[in-house]
């Protein structure tokens, strides 16, 4: 296991943290492949940063292919939380813009998990609730 990964396991639930540096060097296909491989192991992933818009749709597409081919796989739950730009001052916005351009979007958090484990994710602008399946 990579030193950068931190895994927490409790009552069968495993959460795998992926720092931005671990996926920043991968191309879209490699990123999605990596994420789906982890999800297929029934782990919940928390990524520092977020996928690009086209990667998110590609993730949905590839997930659907797997729902049709991997027995018992029902799909994923996905949510992204990001700082609200409307609540930032001008200078903070500029700083965030420069940081994103230089090192990518590391301010957001992306949570992805198998639908068999995560029942639902409810998001409103300021919070994210993750509901787990009991069984």
């Amino acid at each position: 296991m990579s030193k950068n990964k931190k895994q927490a396991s409790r009552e069968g639930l495993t959460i795998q943290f992926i720092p931005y540096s671990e996926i920043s060097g991968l191309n879209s296909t490699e990123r999605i492949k990596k994420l789906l491989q982890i999800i297929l192991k029934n782990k919940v992933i928390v990524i520092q940063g977020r996928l690009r818009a086209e990667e998110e749709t590609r993730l949905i597409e590839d997930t659907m292919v797997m729902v049709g081919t991997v027995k018992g796989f029902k799909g994923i739950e996905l949510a992204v939380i990001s700082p609200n730009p409307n609540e930032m001052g001008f200078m903070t916005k500029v700083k965030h813009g420069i940081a994103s351009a230089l090192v990518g979007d590391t301010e957001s958090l992306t949570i992805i998990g198998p639908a068999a484990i995560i029942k639902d994710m409810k998001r409103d602008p300021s919070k994210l609730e993750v509901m787990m399946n009991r069984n």
Partner: protein
Amino acid sequence: MVIRIIRNFFSRIFSEMFKSKKNISLGFYGPPNAGKTSLANRICKDWTGEEIGTVSRVPHETRKVQFREKVDIKYKDNQLSFKLVDTPGIATKIDYEDFLKFKLKKKEAQSRAKEATQGIIDAIKWLDDVNAVVVVLDSTENPYSQVNITIIGNLVARKIPVLIVANKVDAKKSDIKKIEAAFPEYDVVGISAKYGTNMEEFYESLFKLAKKARK
């Protein structure tokens, strides 16, 4: 052989040029059961007298991309021609057991789930072939779902103009303001596709959208 290839190349380029000017390929996107087919049906009935597809309270009723070529819509003194592309609802999970709650038999539910997964893949592929998109959201549901954000983010990345429709305004739990707050950069029109409420404002916004698509 070479002449034929050159001729085909130019004919394809010219046909694409004229298609983009005369006929706007209008996609209907959104999560399942938001009312995409109901709205496409309403438009088709208003202007052609025929419907595009069936609707149901069971999610994923539309599992194949449905079209209606050349729907001529008039608004005030203007007329535009649209190709309507009604797509299956986009979701990140499909569980056949969810369909059993609607009293479908197991085999029927499994087959529906299989078709629904393919429908989602097709809907995403069709993003390459639309000039403008109406994102249909159920105004009684939380708009902050990642599917909605992903669809809209993808359209922005592809520079496809977007109109957001807050459907089911006839329902008690309808909350258009929540949709407007979630997507402040976009035009949001509240309608009831089922009852035809506020369609005049929808057509006005549709023509504005078409103008952006024709630029």
